[in-house]
């Protein structure tokens, strides 16, 4: 089960708070997967009490409350608050993935050049849930075939979202990777498999953190998802957990 509680002393009335939370959730906690199971109890709540007061003016003892943030997606304060809340929620959600039961890897999958955000998110979600992708990552296997397989069976995509001849898939080292200087490891380019340097792939897959980059080549939209690998330990933990 996922539970999360956010608290801020910014003055955000309920309508704005609700819409800001939905935006943040759809780009953070709704974009993570450990084992593909959706709990009966998942809840993310946010409280905003407006207690951060305006600084008192010279000669004044009182501290006034700041005015409320309007529920207006074009308002600069709303936009800034949305960015803060979304970034913060992503960092918090990523901590959950890092603590996935038995996880040894933290993976970001970035699907881009998709016809719609929904298409990109659906594909990222399917990759993140695939047991065979997840076990390949645990086994440090650059098995792009399993990634393509997951992309190919993603349900409810728009017409023309996936065109095999336009697909490019790469593994990308993270900023602190020893492999960073070697750049992205291209696995498939415009539907054609690349000759993979197995030693390089093995070095890259030693890292705890990894990025999978998927270009559909069929549009301009994108989505990110964060997930972990699937290990023996996951089975051990959940084989012992009793209802």
């Amino acid at each position, binding site marked *: 089960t996922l*539970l999360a509680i956010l608290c*801020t*002393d910014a003055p955000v009335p309920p309508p704005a708070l609700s819409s800001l939370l939905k935006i943040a959730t759809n780009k953070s906690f709704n974009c993570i997967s450990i084992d593909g199971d959706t709990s009966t109890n998942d809840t993310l*709540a946010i409280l905003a009490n407006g207690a*951060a007061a*305006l600084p008192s003016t010279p000669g004044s003892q009182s501290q006034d409350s700041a005015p409320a943030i309007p529920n207006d997606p074009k308002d600069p304060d709303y936009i800034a608050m949305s960015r803060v809340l979304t970034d913060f929620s992503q*960092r918090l959600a990523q901590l*959950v993935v*890092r603590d996935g039961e038995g996880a040894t890897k933290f993976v970001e999958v970035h699907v881009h050049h998709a016809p719609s955000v929904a298409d990109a998110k659906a594909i990222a979600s399917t990759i993140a849930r695939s047991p065979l992708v997840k076990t390949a990552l645990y086994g440090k296997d650059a098995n792009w075939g399993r990634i393509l397989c997951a992309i190919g069976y993603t349900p409810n995509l728009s017409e023309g979202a996936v065109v095999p001849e336009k697909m490019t898939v790469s593994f990308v080292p993270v900023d602190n990777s020893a492999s960073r200087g070697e750049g992205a490891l291209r696995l498939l380019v415009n539907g054609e498999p690349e000759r993979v340097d197995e030693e390089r792939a093995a070095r890259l897959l030693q890292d705890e953190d990894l990025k999978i980059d998927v270009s559909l080549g069929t549009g301009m939209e994108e989505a990110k998802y964060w997930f972990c690998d699937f290990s023996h330990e996951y089975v051990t933990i959940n084989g012992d957990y009793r*209802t």
Partner: protein
Amino acid sequence: LDSSIPESKQKYVPTSGTYPKGFKVSGTHVGVKPANTKFPDLAFIVSEKPCSAAAVFTTNKFQAAPVQISRSMLEARKGEGVRGVIINSGCANAVTGRRGEEDALAMGEKASSCFPDDPDDGLGHRSIVMSTGVIGQHLPINKILDRIHQASSNLDSSHSAWLTTARAICTTDTFPKLLSTTFTLPGSAHRDVVYSLAGMTKGAGMIHPNMA
């Protein structure tokens, strides 16, 4: 608490934080699971004054009792006048029928009774309720209710209190997940104000959220 956290995860646990004004939190030991004899498993997060609140919930068709009770409370109050969040770990209070709903409501009401100065506006309790743990078991509700006033007495705004509270919501998690930050807003009315945002989360398995 730190001794139970794997060395590889220590780097994700903050040693300090900047927390929002007007909030106090506590983590208290109840022993929801009889085997838990020392770790906090009741978290209480409180705004010193009634505040705005919003939430998103699982879209699983089997919605646990605390999900239903919390959604009802927020709808009744239209997200206004909320005082806090009460959470137990160790038992999810899910698929527990009418008794489960009564237990979740009792948690919300008991938590709200810690603030007797709040006016009775006829809208019921003012607390979001959450539970996490095994499915299909009833809460040891009396043990929980008996500790809520102690949880209220333990409320504090220190980093240590926030960390203990984050620990109290954990189940199979190996470390408490807590973050805080400060930010400013560009509008002229807000330009000189430094705001704070804090968050805690839990989850290690049964994780593929789709909340709305």
